[in-house]
């Protein structure tokens, strides 16, 4: 056994001899490490998922007001609709030479807290949520018929509600505002209309998975719904055609022939017009939202750093407190020929070992936090986070913990370094 192996034996034995404090310190280091990694990873992945996730549209046209609310309401199916815009506006942008695809959304109902969106079958036949990728059905599912009371259920909505192809359900009035399926907003009055599920969609890992899609005509004709396209109340009558001037939609989802066309449309709608708002580009709107919420993330980061500091302090004190009882051990080792730097290294190595063990266990903590966070975010928004997605923090944090361990180990190591062999041995005769 050479000096290095002796060093490792000293470290290993000390960790075992002080098993309780070692365990507590390792766990606190693991919590710190896991928390820091999770804070950074959740923030980065959330931002990436919300700002750059599978949206498929370039812009959202909606009622005059907040672009952020418009995007939250139509892309992420959160919050309430800021209001409606007339059907004529939808027709107008649909015919615009720069617009490749315009799909109307009408919201206001739910089924067991899951948002119901009235739209056109183009959402299944033309819309690509990522380039080249349209919604796909599970098994023999198919789009709804625009003139029938039929519905298509997103994958997550199907999981939560239990709806499957052929099932019949009755929508209720109101929309869930915070993504909480258990507490939808609105009066909860169940409509008389019954809808048949024609298909369940395959997962897209996007908020669309939490949506139940029905024909937009169904929203217009739902019992109790009032259309104010002309400014006056209008209720659809069974069997009668609804004149276009009475129709209104919550929003129109737009895909331009070229993304650059959004600027012209934005100028047209936001600067010259007064009745609507164009949220464009969608990713920028979300990014601005994240910028505004950046302070929350910074506070979380600060808390995580403080936890690391506390863990480092705990590590320091747990080793420092053993120094008095170990002074005799160091004196004996020195008497056997161990150099000062050997005992110094033993203590620093011990602290670093605790950090390494903590960091390794930290991955478990990280995985747990990520799994819980991902489940909550998926439940609330439909956005899916990947626990195993790479983030620099997954390497930087353990390295930082190692550095904290080494620094924390220096203080007790200096005490071991300064052990006076002769006097210590004499005192322990």
């Amino acid at each position, binding site marked *: 056994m050479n000096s290095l192996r002796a060093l490792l034996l000293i470290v290993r034995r000390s960790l075992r001899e002080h098993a309780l404090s070692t365990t507590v310190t390792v766990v606190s280091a693991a919590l710190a490490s896991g928390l820091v990694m999770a804070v950074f990873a959740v923030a980065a992945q959330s931002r990436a998922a919300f700002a750059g996730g599978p949206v498929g549209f370039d812009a959202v046209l909606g009622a005059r007001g907040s672009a952020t609310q418009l995007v939250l309401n139509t892309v992420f199916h959160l919050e309430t609709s800021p209001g409606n815009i007339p059907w004529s506006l939808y027709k107008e942008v649909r015919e615009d030479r720069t617009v490749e695809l315009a799909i109307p959304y009408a919201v206001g109902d739910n089924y067991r807290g899951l948002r119901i969106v009235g739209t056109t079958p183009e959402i299944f036949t033309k819309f690509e949520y990522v380039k080249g990728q349209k919604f796909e059905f599970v098994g023999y599912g198919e789009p709804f018929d625009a003139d029938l009371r039929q519905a298509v259920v997103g994958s997550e909505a199907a999981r939560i509600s239990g709806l499957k192809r052929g099932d019949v359900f009755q929508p209720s009035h109101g929309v869930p505002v915070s993504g909480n399926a258990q507490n939808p907003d609105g009066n909860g009055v169940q409509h008389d209309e019954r809808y048949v599920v024609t298909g369940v969609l395959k997962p897209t890992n996007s908020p669309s998975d939490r949506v139940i899609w029905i024909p937009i005509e169904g929203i217009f004709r739902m019992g109790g719904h009032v259309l104010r396209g002309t400014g006056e109340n209008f209720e659809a009558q069974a069997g009668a055609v609804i004149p276009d001037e009475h129709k209104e939609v919550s929003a129109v989802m737009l895909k331009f022939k070229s993304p650059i066309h959004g600027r012209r449309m934005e100028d047209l709608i936001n600067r010259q017009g007064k009745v609507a708002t164009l949220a464009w580009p969608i990713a920028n709107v979300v990014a601005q939202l994240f910028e505004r919420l950046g302070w929350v993330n910074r506070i979380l980061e600060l808390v995580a750093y403080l936890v690391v500091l506390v863990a480092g302090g705990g590590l320091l004190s747990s080793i420092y407190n053993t120094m008095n009882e170990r002074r005799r*051990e160091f004196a004996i080792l020195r008497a056997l020929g161990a150099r000062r730097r050997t005992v110094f290294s033993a203590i620093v190595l011990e602290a670093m070992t605790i950090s390494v063990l903590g960091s390794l266990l930290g991955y478990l903590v990280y995985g747990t936090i990520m799994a819980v966070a991902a489940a909550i975010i998926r439940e609330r928004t439909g956005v899916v986070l990947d626990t195993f997605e790479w983030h620099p923090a997954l390497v930087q944090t353990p390295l930082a913990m190692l550095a904290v361990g080494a620094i924390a180990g220096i203080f007790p190591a200096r005490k071991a370094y300064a052990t006076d062999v002769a006097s210590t041995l004499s005192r322990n*005769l």
Partner: protein
Amino acid sequence: MDLLHVENLIKDYVSPDGEVQRVLEIANFSLAAGEQVALRGSSGSGKTTFLHIVAGILAADRGSVRFDGEEIVDLNESQRDQYRARELGYVFQSFHLLGAYSALENVIFGGAFGSGGDPAFAEDLLVTLGLEHRLKHRPHQLSIGQQQRVALARALAGRPRMVLADEPTGNLDPTAAVEALELLRGLCRNQGAALLLVSHDPAVLGAFDRQEDFAVLNQASRGVTP
């Protein structure tokens, strides 16, 4: 040529009130390779300080301590650590075994910082001393006599050229003391190591051909002060 040669060695201590107190003043002392010498001395006579200086644990204030021709007094602390690890074995009065380690690990540590611990040799030593069934026992699980034998094995584990023993039988009963002494002397003889032993036990001292009265050797203990 002497293995150890001490000349005009002086060590002073400064008391808390600032008074300089000479504890060691040795004009001349030498030990040949493989020789076994006993120093007779009472408690507080400075013999442990002498052994610590010879071992390089303490630095001398003045004088010369040469080991195999090399001046120990001129070495820095790290070099003295290396000298101690490579050349010396040390048996302490209270054994000073490491409580967290097994008997075998304690012995391995005896050679770990010099030429490198040899587990097989460490085990052989313990087997030779009749501790083959106690290899994994910790010190508190051993009798006093067994602890003493572990301490002896540890002192020899690095194949030293000189063993320093400070009252090595002080905690043993007379029978065990004689037995331990024989083991120590036998091991040193077998390895060709010189032995410098300090004791005040006549039974122990009587076993050595060469005895030195430390009170005579150390002029400071005779009232010769600076």
